[in-house]
């Protein structure tokens, strides 16, 4: 995953813009919803990792994965998918250690920031 690529898949943004014939209201509405749920989701992920709750973490990662994909944030969605899978494995094995979640979480934090900046440029916060 290169940090020089666009964090947002522009074809998905085009699709969102086409929904109201380019007026951008639908896009703005979805971005606004995404901002709220993704910031909350990031805080949840951090807390759940700290508390060692793989079930809750898998659930949060799953929700973030779906929402990110809707915005065309493919790389972020990919990291979320890996986090979800990792948490499910931990859940399955019964270990309360997130052995190598550190690297995944770092990737998540980087990608998360890139997406938020890109969204800010696309739809300024109200």
């Amino acid at each position, binding site marked *: 995953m290169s940090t020089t690529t666009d964090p947002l898949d522009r074809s998905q943004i085009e699709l969102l813009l086409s929904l109201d014939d380019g007026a951008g209201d639908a896009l703005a509405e979805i971005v606004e919803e995404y901002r709220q749920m993704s910031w909350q989701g990031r805080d949840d992920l951090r807390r759940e990792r700290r508390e060692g709750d793989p079930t809750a973490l898998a659930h949060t990662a*799953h929700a973030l994965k779906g929402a990110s994909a*809707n915005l065309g944030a493919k790389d972020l969605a990919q990291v979320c998918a890996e986090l979800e899978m990792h948490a499910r494995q931990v859940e399955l094995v019964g270990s309360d250690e997130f052995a190598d979640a550190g690297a995944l979480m770092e990737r998540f934090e980087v990608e998360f920031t890139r997406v938020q900046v890109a969204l800010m440029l696309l739809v300024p916060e109200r």
Partner: protein
Amino acid sequence: MKVLIADDDPTSRLLLKAMVSKLGHECVVAEDGSSAWEVLASGGIDVLLTDWMMPGVDGPELCRRLRNEVGGGYIYIVLTTGLDHPEDVLEGMSAGADDYLTKPVDRFAVQTRLVAAERVTELHRQLALTQEQLERANLELLERSLTDQLTGLGNRRRMDEDLDRVHARAHRLGRTYGIAIFDIDYFKRYNDHYGHVAGDDALRDVASCIELIVRAGECAYRYGGEEFLVLMPDCGLGDVVSTAADRIRQSVLHAAIPHEARPSTPCVVTVSGGVSCWMPGSQLSAREVVEEADQALYEAKTAGRNRISAAPLGGADLLEAMDALDEPDDERALEVSRSGSPAHT
């Protein structure tokens, strides 16, 4: 179409709603499975686009509930799921989904599903309509098979069914019923004189007279060529059956349908009638009660026609026996006087 979107992710709800609305469909959203179920239960939904994973009632559970629900129109179900669990798709389809979409959803994929949904729900609508028409046609056919085409009265088959039911009920509950059979007097001469078309008209007129007089709960049937039968459940006691039968006879007489070929006065169409009655304790079968009425009818014919004759009941005259049952005190007095003075019997 009216489309319900069930998804716990707000971005997915907004995205799907915008797509579906743009395609010209009405859109309703639900944030979880339970509220989706409430919307579905209130009716009017054609298509359900539901997420797989939702807190509480999830997608497959929604599918199962909908498919187990009987009645209402067919709801086309599309499950939305991530690509990472392809085995989910099979489970979802087995649970009752018609199709699936992978997330993130693509506008043309949604459009494709809705085109299929429109066709399938329309087919189901047509099917339900055809089914309904078929059921109605069956009912009409059944009704027709039990109706006499000429007079519109119940036919012999309906009479058999009703009589069996009334007899069984009377037997079980200790009730009574009466039977009156009527025959048009000199009907062969009528046909010979006026022709069969006029004969049919006369049959219809007599049927109308009978139908006008029968009371609620009683039923009239065309029993044979020019014979009619009236079944009187719970006919009560006393001379109710004979009185009712005589009202019918008078009604036909007063209709004054000319019958110039009648060998004696009055020169109008008349009927003769025979009545019988079933009472608790009687060993007679329903057929035997009818036979008794038929026998009484024969007596009315030989006694001069245009009259009602009652079947005897256990050696006593029917009317007398019913009078006795109607007034139990008198009956006891009668029995006392009979046993007290044998000369009276």
